[in-house]
């Protein structure tokens, strides 16, 4: 019976499964965090106002072109191929034997960064032009405007898309088994290689992936609600009454 097999595989190999799930979560989490930072930086660099002429304009243009190539390349190629190119390429070209976990996080981060750059760009565009103007009108410079007014709104705007990216990363780290990272798919392959029960072994992996994505989605929704703050606000005399009652 399959169910008996599933239970026995899960109980006998729970340590391997959990270690794989932990590795998957680690790579996906760090990859998403660093990727989001990369995307945010690119998004911010794109908003730096370009002067009419001069060296600064040339430098900024050059940076924008390089970043454009980066985004185009990593969005336009499969992550499984990028993993092979980065991991084996680094070994061959520079004689560097990268730590597999580090390589995995690195690949997920630069891949996510390319997507996040576009998400952040969209997030900045979606902030009303009036917000920029109001900030300028009270004398804020570009950085003050970005830090105090625009970016907090951008972060809120991009949170759902970032969560989506995180969930995708949890699933897509499975392709990194090609460079021998001991994430969940890799571990499941090892387990099934021993018992030849492919369906039952991967069914266990399936449940574990589902639990991880479900929990992460719920946590992110909670954060979104927290960021939006309470639906109602308290009038000041109400607050005074509340404090009065306490005293």
């Amino acid at each position, binding site marked *: 019976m399959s169910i008996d097999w599933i239970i026995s595989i899960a109980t006998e190999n729970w340590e391997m499964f959990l270690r794989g799930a932990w590795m998957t979560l680690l790579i996906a989490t760090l990859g998403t965090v660093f990727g989001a930072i990369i995307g945010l930086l690119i998004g911010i660099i794109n908003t730096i106002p370009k002067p009419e002429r001069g060296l600064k304009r040339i430098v900024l243009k050059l940076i924008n072109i390089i970043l454009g190539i980066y985004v185009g390349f990593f969005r336009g190629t499969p992550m499984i191929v990028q993993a092979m190119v980065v991991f084996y390429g680094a070994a061959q070209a520079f004689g560097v034997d990268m730590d597999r976990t580090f390589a995995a996080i690195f690949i997920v981060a630069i891949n996510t960064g390319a997507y996040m750059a576009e998400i952040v760009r969209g997030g900045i565009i979606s902030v*009303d032009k*009036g*917000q920029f*103007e*109001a*900030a*300028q*009108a*009270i*004398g*804020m*410079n570009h950085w*003050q405007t970005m830090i*105090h*007014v625009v970016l*907090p*709104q951008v972060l*809120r705007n991009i949170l759902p898309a970032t969560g989506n990216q995180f969930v995708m990363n949890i699933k897509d780290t499975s392709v990194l088994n090609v460079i021998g990272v001991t994430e969940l798919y890799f571990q499941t392959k090892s387990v099934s290689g021993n018992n030849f029960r492919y369906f039952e072994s991967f069914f266990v992996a399936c449940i574990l992936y589902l639990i991880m994505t479900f929990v992460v989605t719920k946590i992110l929704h909670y954060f979104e609600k927290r960021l939006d*703050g309470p639906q*109602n*606000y*308290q*009038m*000041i*005399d109400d*607050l005074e009454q509340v404090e009065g009652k306490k005293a």
Partner: protein
Amino acid sequence: MIASKGDRLMKNVIEIQHLSKSFGTHEVLKDIDFSVNKGEVVCVIGSSGSGKSTLLRCINLLERPSGGQIVYQGENILDNNHNINNYRTKLGMVFQSFNLFNNLNVLTNCIVGQTKVLKRSKSDAENVAMKYLKVVGLDRYINAKPHQLSGGQKQRVAIARALSMEPDVLLFDEPTSALDPEMVGEVLKVMKELAGTGLTMLIVTHEMEFAREVSDRVVFMDKGVIVEEGSPEQIFNHPQNERTKAFLKRTFKQ
């Protein structure tokens, strides 16, 4: 040339000389000469597309003028090396669409410019903000976020935010045009009270009755030029220019 006007400089808060603005080949402002005196309430009227909002936006450089000078405290603001952000803190701006910072509550909207730009301490900034939120009657709403307020309330917060910077001039860009009719009154009432305190105000508006009541001077613009200016009595009761007469006839017929 600027120095020779020394006498008037004492009175002028802002003086605009030969100001022009084009969007591509479309000339929106043509050779505007105009000044605002200290303590004066000036209303700019005119039909849509006459350039009055653009004039206001040029004054605080939200639009870069194509030519001319803006003289503030004896200096031409359009000089390349001029500190624009410092100049902007001296001008308060109230927008048609409020533009409150959506991520900040009412109190912080009125504080952020003071602490980050003027470098006031948080407690000073809070006192100043509370003072002006009382003026606009919203001191009880300091914890509310902009999306929780009505249009009229938002605009009053926007006025308090501008006042909190304690500017030399307050610029209003059609402050009641985006409001529901029943909310126009509360905003105009606040503005009338401010006009009574001797604050220097430059108001672009379609509210003719209001302009007649509060203005020291009314400026009528049409097709990018100032056609006529004078006291409300002169402009509304005895307009000299044919274009002014035609505009007022159209407006008051409705």
